[in-house]
């Protein structure tokens, strides 16, 4: 198996070719831009949070396969979650990608994210995988600051 096969596994390619929750929300409770200045990845995250729950999430991304797939998986997993749950999942994913000392285990309902674990072998691309998640953290913070009218 070549490194390419490893990095561009089926799950990643599936999300890259058919990104979930792609698009915009007309009246979001939070809208955040995420940029990786070094590689030019750009994304806009739209959130609709009501009563502490993510009722809708949409993304428009202009980026590489890792960035697009990571954002797509994230949106699928966090839709319908409470803000607290979402924060925990983001935290867990970031630890999985960044922790160099131990392998962070993922619960069964997050197993899709396993596909991104292979990206850890390519340090320069970890930031591509993290961009949607860091943008989400900012979005969740903003959504709580300005609750929907």
């Amino acid at each position, binding site marked *: 198996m070549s490194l390419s096969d490893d990095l561009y596994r089926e799950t990643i390619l599936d999300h890259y070719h058919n990104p979930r929750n792609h698009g915009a929300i007309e009246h979001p409770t939070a809208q955040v831009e995420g940029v990786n200045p070094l590689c030019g990845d750009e994304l806009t995250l739209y959130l609709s949070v009501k009563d502490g729950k993510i009722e809708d999430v949409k993304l428009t991304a202009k*980026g590489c396969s890792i960035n697009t797939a990571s954002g797509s998986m994230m949106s699928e997993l966090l839709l319908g979650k409470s803000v607290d749950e979402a924060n925990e999942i983001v935290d867990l994913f970031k630890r999985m990608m960044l922790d160099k000392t131990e392998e962070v285990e993922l619960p069964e309902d997050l197993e899709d994210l396993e596909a991104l674990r292979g990206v850890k072998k390519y340090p320069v691309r970890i930031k591509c995988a993290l961009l949607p998640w860091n943008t989400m953290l900012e979005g969740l913070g903003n959504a709580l600051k300005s609750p929907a009218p």
Partner: protein
Amino acid sequence: MSKLNVEKIRKDFPILSRKIDGKQLVYLDNAATSQKPKVVIDALTEYYQGYNANIHRGIHTLAEEATDAYESVRETVRAFIDAGHTHEIIFTSGTTEAINLVAHSWGNANILPGDEIVLTAMEHHSNLIPWQRLAAERSAKLVFIPITEDGQLDMAEAKKLISDKTKIVAVTQMSNVFGTITPIKELADLAHARGAVILVDGAQGVPHVKTSVRELDIDFLAFSMHKMLGPTGVGILYGKTDLLNAMPPFQSGGHMITTVTRDKATWAELPWKFEAGTRNIADVIASGKAIEYLSALGMDNVREHEIEITKYALDKLSELGDITIFGPKDATLRGGVIAFNVDAIHAHDIGQICADAAIAVRAGHHCCQPLMRDLNVMGTARASFYIYNTREEVDLLFEALKEADKVLGHVAVR
């Protein structure tokens, strides 16, 4: 066929026998930095093991040997770019420092509010940001010569934009994105007719195209040794004697003075006025070997080889239906730098798939963010050639791009 014996040349570069995961390295990132022949690497070891000493004023054997070796490179550089005097050759840390030196030292002495600084739309950040800062500090205006659709300078516009308000024209000799070779003599004549000076960013040009500062009538020329077989950390600033003499020092400290009292100092003669502190002695000496190596090959032969391989690559890569190649289509108008995109695949994905095939290409904005915006792309992949690259390597690149297109291409535009 060009007169370069590429097979023999390859044997002079130890790194070219490197394998990555069992695959032979294919190095196509020469516009970022070139590889180094053994003579250059050996020169560093010889200096550190045989005659390491600080230069100038040492009254001992090692210091004399080191000073001789360092200063003799000035003559090697002078001859290589056909300058009139060795004192017109200033050693810097790179092209960036050389341009900053001019922007700061010449710029602050010559640019007044309302003056115009003429650049092109395809400058590397290193020939853009120093002028942005100068323009902001001096309330001057930046003016950009636009490019035509195939990445050449719009010379009709250049004639209009270079005016009596122009104080300096700062242009690349060869675009690090399009590979476009710019008409330096024509631009120099336009600048001089208006009483302006011309600075040429030769970082991409000098390593690949025979350059005579006197024939081209260049006022300032900046280039980097690491892109032309030399070590990192050495750049050259060429400047005409009168201009350099009229400029205040850039950095100050040791080496660049004649007499110093507690309250003031007088500056050393050229070129030392601009070489404050202990310079990069070892790398300057090794740079001399790099220039000797290129001169022995002959810059006309280097250029001929690059036209051949660039033409071959332009034709071969075009066979891939989904490819967009930027810059002139005629290999004689450009250097061996080819920026491209395959379908709508992100440049980093292309770079990754090439890397997995042990092929080194660059991916990103190439320090040309404004140009990327003009082209309406996030970035591009870029292959760039030098004296040791072969058609077989271009074929391997082609195969890797075919693979990238198969795995990641054909995504609906989002």
